[in-house]
């Protein structure tokens, strides 16, 4: 004797026993997670196993911190681990190296407004919207400079992107033809870790006779270029 098999369709309601089990499992899971979270530590601060002393510094109070690798300075307002005060006695948690600072018209006066070039424009104005990031390199980096004609291989203006040709460099870096830079050659420098640089997108440059070069490429301003950094 065989039991007849009952076919079901996609829309047919099936007995609820299985659904009740799934719902109960979900409730239990939520409760376990909730209980575990009571004992979890803050994700933004580490508990200290022993007392530590260090000095905290936050420079550029008006600056806006950005970047994925910034240190967590003392007094930044982030939540500490719950058990910190009970288990460890020490003075302040120290500050690591200063992180990147985003500058622009919204939080001026900005550092590169202090540098006026012979043309009368400030270095800040050479960045798109006058906005750029101030940072100290944490590792050696290689920067490139398109040069030729009147422009020599050394400059305070560099790019992270290896120029692929004179036209690309002129457009992306907004190299004004009036400067006499033919951009037919490329120089490179190896900037050591610990060097302060300013980077953003190259701003537009108006050209004689009307029109402008839009820029938009990577622009890095290095205030203190050491000729010894040149890559042969």
């Amino acid at each position, binding site marked *: 004797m065989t039991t007849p098999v009952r076919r079901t369709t996609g829309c047919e309601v099936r007995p609820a026993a299985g659904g009740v089990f799934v719902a109960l499992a979900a409730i239990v899971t939520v409760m376990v997670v909730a209980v575990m979270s009571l004992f979890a530590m803050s994700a933004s601060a580490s508990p200290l196993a022993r007392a530590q002393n260090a000095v905290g510094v936050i420079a550029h109070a008006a600056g806006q911190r950005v970047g994925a690798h910034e240190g967590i300075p003392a007094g930044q307002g982030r939540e500490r681990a719950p058990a910190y005060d009970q288990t460890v006695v020490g003075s302040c948690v120290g500050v690591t190296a200063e992180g990147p600072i985003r500058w622009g018209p919204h939080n001026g006066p900005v550092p590169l407004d202090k*540098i006026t070039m012979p*043309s009368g424009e400030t270095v800040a104005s050479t960045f798109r919207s006058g906005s750029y990031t101030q940072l100290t390199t944490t590792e050696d980096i290689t920067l490139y400079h398109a040069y030729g004609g*009147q422009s020599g291989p050394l400059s*305070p203006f560099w790019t992270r992107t290896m120029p692929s040709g004179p036209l690309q460099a002129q457009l992306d870096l907004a190299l004004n033809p009036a400067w006499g*830079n*033919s951009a037919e050659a490329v120089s490179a420098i190896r900037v050591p870790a610990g060097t302060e640089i300013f980077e953003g997108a190259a701003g537009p440059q108006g050209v004689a006779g009307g029109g402008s070069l839009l820029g938009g490429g990577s622009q890095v301003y290095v205030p*203190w270029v050491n000729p010894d950094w040149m890559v042969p």
Partner: protein
Amino acid sequence: MSAADVLTTVLAWFREAKVASLDLPDHSFGGPGRSLHQLTRAEAWNDRLLLELDKQLLLVLTAPGEPLVAQEELVFDKYDQLVFDWQEYGNKRPHLEVYNAGAVRFVAQPRPGSL
């Protein structure tokens, strides 16, 4: 001030500055503040002062007056004649420019810590 004295001043200034941009009487060479140059040779003889930059830009100042010296700038605003004999970077195409007046200005990078 003799050309030899001026030479001493120039050498001392470049020793500190290391590199500088060059502003000629009628334009900023390589774009305003855009190109930095190293002093690769400097000589004085009679009333002439020769300055070579990057081994391919030659400035010959005849009867240079005492330059104006500041931390950021070295300015020649008095001379009888300036001959600027230079080759283009990248292709060495030759050029010659002669000036009888106007300031020649070397501008150093900003001092560390000044920003």
